[in-house]
């Protein structure tokens, strides 16, 4: 038995709980926060290594055999996601030292961040549908609080929309889980996958599949249910936006991929065609939304949607290469998108605004920042040899291989528009001459190194993934192989239980 798998859940929780006990001491909170996230990152790398060499890892909590207890399952896909969560936790913890003021820290920012991580890691690890719902809720409530933490007016307005729409998604999810239990009498994903095949009423199974799709789709912010994201993601401080933008929506994508490769695979004609259309519409509407924005972070927010479309595209195409492409895309996008939000935070630090119309002159004044922006921005636009290129390449190749030319055309066009948006930010914030006079009190450079260090760290990862794409892609392919052979997963979970 392998208790290591539980650590990505337990480490953030104990970190968070410990910090709840030292509420007054901001310095100690920061220390514990960074220590906890470092541990999380290291453990997740260890897990990835373990999964890659030894295959799927399973932990039956409380020694109750599957499907009766809750199984924690770590396959390569989960492990990849955990590694990303670890990296994000680490980077955000450091970034927040400067970006999150004392008042927010004193009111539990670091606890919330770690509980968010706990929920995210739990969602990646669990092999149980209801438990997945619970982790979604943990994540959700932590994100609710983080998005509202600070109480600015814009935050309040964004939060109400975020909360309302995400709660609807949660309710849909839990109803769907309940229906699954009614149909199969089971909650363990592997067990459900087995039992669902024998259900006589396939109509209700499909209906439930759509409910799952809707619930995870809302969480992932796909067309046409993405509204909450652009309404809220630009409202909290940059550190929070970054971790949301990078990780949170991807949990929805993770869940979509997990359920639609493991559980709802019997009628891909219907479900995956639906996903294909959703993917295309998501890509387009997201990128078009971004095209007209004039706020740094709002541009980025709309792009999240667009890129979620790419990730769903891989799932919809449903070939080994496509799924590997999706996994790779997630892998790349989390790092890159979070980094762009980090950069936006630094930009705000330096010029006091996120408004592209008011920004300018950053290229002349801060070349290092320009480079740090360019790396993730160009990666996002799919410019080789950065990470985004390989992700796009895999997906486009997968699309061409199965002859879905229209979707490839859409994906390519969206890629161009992404480039358009990135250059827009570049031209407005970096190239253009600044509007004078800027807001008073800026640039505000104290502690800036805390914010820049994680940006450099993530940029280095982006370059490393780009140049060392073979390694990353091999891991993604392994994940894809496992995902497309659900029997392996089922066997691993059920091993020794009967």
């Amino acid at each position, binding site marked *: 038995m392998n208790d290591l798998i539980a650590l990505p859940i337990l480490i953030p929780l104990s970190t968070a709980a410990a910090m709840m006990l030292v509420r007054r001491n901001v310095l100690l909170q920061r220390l514990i926060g960074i220590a906890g996230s470092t541990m999380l990152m290291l453990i997740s790398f260890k897990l990835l290594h373990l999964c890659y060499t030894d295959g799927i890892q399973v932990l039956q909590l409380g020694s109750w055999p599957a499907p009766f207890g809750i199984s924690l399952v770590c396959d390569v896909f989960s492990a990849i996601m955990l590694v990303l969560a670890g990296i994000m936790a680490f980077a955000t913890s450091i970034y927040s030292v400067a970006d999150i003021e004392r008042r927010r820290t004193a009111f539990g920012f670091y606890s919330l961040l770690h509980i968010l991580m706990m929920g995210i890691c739990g969602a990646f690890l669990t092999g149980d549908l209801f438990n997945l719902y619970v982790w979604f809720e943990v994540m959700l409530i932590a994100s609710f609080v983080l998005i509202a933490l600070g109480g600015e007016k814009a935050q309040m307005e964004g939060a109400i929309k975020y909360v309302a729409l995400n709660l609807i998604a949660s309710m849909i999810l839990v109803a769907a889980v*309940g229906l699954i239990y009614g149909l199969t009498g089971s909650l363990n994903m592997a067990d459900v996958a087995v039992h669902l095949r024998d259900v006589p009423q396939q109509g209700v199974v499909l209906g439930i599949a759509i409910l799952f799709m809707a619930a995870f789709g809302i969480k992932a912010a796909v067309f046409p249910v993405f509204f909450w994201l652009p309404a809220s993601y630009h409202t909290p401080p940059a550190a929070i936006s970054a971790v949301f933008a990078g990780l949170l929506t991807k949990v929805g994508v993770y869940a979509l991929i997990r359920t639609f490769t493991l559980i709802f695979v019997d009628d891909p004609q219907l479900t995956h065609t639906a996903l294909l259309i959703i993917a295309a519409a998501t890509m387009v509407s997201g990128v078009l939304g971004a095209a007209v924005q004039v706020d740094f972070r709002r541009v980025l927010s709309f792009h999240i949607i667009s890129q979620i479309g790419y990730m769903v595209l891989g799932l919809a195409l449903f070939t080994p290469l496509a799924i590997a492409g999706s996994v790779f895309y997630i892998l790349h996008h989390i790092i890159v998108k979070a980094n762009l939000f980090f950069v936006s935070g630094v930009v705000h630090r330096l010029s006091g605004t996120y408004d592209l119309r008011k920004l300018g002159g950053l290229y002349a004044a801060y070349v290092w920042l320009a480079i740090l922006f360019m790396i993730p921005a160009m990666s996002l636009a799919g410019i080789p040899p950065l990470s985004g290129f390989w992700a796009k390449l895999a997906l486009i190749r997968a699309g061409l291989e199965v002859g879905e030319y229209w979707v490839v055309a859409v994906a390519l066009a969206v890629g161009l528009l992404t480039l358009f948006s990135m250059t827009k930010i570049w031209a407005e914030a970096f190239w253009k001459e600044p509007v004078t006079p800027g807001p008073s009190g800026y640039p505000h450079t104290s502690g800036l190194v805390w914010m820049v260090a994680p940006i450099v760290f993530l940029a280095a990862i982006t370059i490393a993934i780009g140049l060392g794409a073979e390694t990353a892609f091999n891991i993604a392919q392994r994940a894809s192989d496992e995902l497309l052979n659900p029997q392996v997963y089922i066997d691993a979970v059920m091993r020794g239980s009967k």
Partner: protein
Amino acid sequence: MQLVFAILIGMLYAGAVYMMLRRSIVKLIIGLALFGHATNLLIFAVARLVRYNPPIVLKGETIPIEPFADPVPQALVLTAIVIGFGVQAFSIVLIKRVYQSVGTDDLDEIRSTDS
């Protein structure tokens, strides 16, 4: 009774949706609360309803006496209720703060963070 409960759950959902589509934030929260009730009852009912016998092992026995109610949906619903309570508490405080900082409870006037 399965039929009656199905209809009841349907009505709860309908009420919830109708409330959520109103312009007042308070109604939105009430709608979400209704949604929660509907969902809890759905989980409870879809796993079959059994009258009288709770899943409790009586003194001197080692298993509950059949027919006993399925304990699983009970545990699930309990979890969902408590989670829902936590979320609801947060939500209603949130609407209070929204009202304080925006000065209205008309959702149609809360639009500044969208384009």
